[in-house]
């Protein structure tokens, strides 16, 4: 119960952060990615703020604890190998991000904004995830 309330709160804060930062404005995202146009470095500062806080908490708090507060263990990825899936997945994601100006979080938050593009984006993103699950099952 407490764990689920914590994740609800985390989701809420995440959404507000995305909205304030400019990530829910596709034109702003494209402005960051458009290095040959009127480049807008704002989103770099989103990363700086987010990584700054998260890294401080990870190295200062999480690494010194045996377990999280409301759960039995930390579920943190431990892989270090670089495989084709990682690179190819990042390329496919990047191309899609550049085409629409939406990544998953801002897409979901923008659903609340009520615009049709966010609805189409999230619907097709879920379809893409479903497609991956089906393909992965066939390959495995």
């Amino acid at each position, binding site marked *: 119960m*407490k*764990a689920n309330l*914590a*994740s*609800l709160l*985390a*989701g809420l804060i*995440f959404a*507000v952060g*995305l909205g*304030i*930062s*400019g990530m829910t404005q596709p034109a*702003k995202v494209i*402005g960051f990615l458009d290095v*040959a146009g009127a480049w*807008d*470095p*704002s989103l770099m*500062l989103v990363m700086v*703020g987010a990584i*700054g*806080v998260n*890294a401080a*908490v990870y190295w200062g*708090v999480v690494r010194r604890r045996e*377990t999280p*507060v409301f*759960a*039995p263990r*930390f*579920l943190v*990825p431990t892989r270090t190998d670089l495989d084709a899936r*990682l*690179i190819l*997945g*990042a390329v496919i*994601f*990047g*191309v899609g*991000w550049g*085409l*629409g*100006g*939406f*990544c*998953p*979080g801002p897409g*979901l*938050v923008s*659903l*609340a*904004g009520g615009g049709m593009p*966010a609805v*189409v*984006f999230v619907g097709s993103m879920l*379809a893409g*995830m479903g497609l*991956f*699950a089906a393909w992965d099952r066939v390959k495995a």
Partner: protein
Amino acid sequence: MMEHFTPVPALAGGILIGLSSSLLLVLDGKIAGISGIVGGLLRPAPGDTAWRATFVVGLLLGGLALRSVQPAVFGESVAPLGIVALAGVLVGFGTRLGNGCTSGHGVCGNSRASVRSMVATVTFIVAAAVSVYVARHVLGGAA
């Protein structure tokens, strides 16, 4: 050049995103990777669904709060709906194949100095910049 630069809200929003992912990690032991959280809901595993669902509900509630207080944060689409649909499929498939997106790799993984996340982040930013360059400056399609 740089006429749209908004450093203060960008940094403030980033700090909130960092606080959120820190909370999820310290309290629940989970990584705030949106594509992974949503992807896990599409393939539900016993005991691993509720926190994902409540996180997504929180995201949507946060969106509703923004809509009532500051609706200007929701910008116009930069592409026609057909392109947005294609973009969504690529984002959905690519983030699952590559195990993460801007949040999971870009924020959480880089914070832990994960080599996979650093490589993924550079790769998706470069791919996105190339995608924007081709769309805007070669094909000239996107507005």
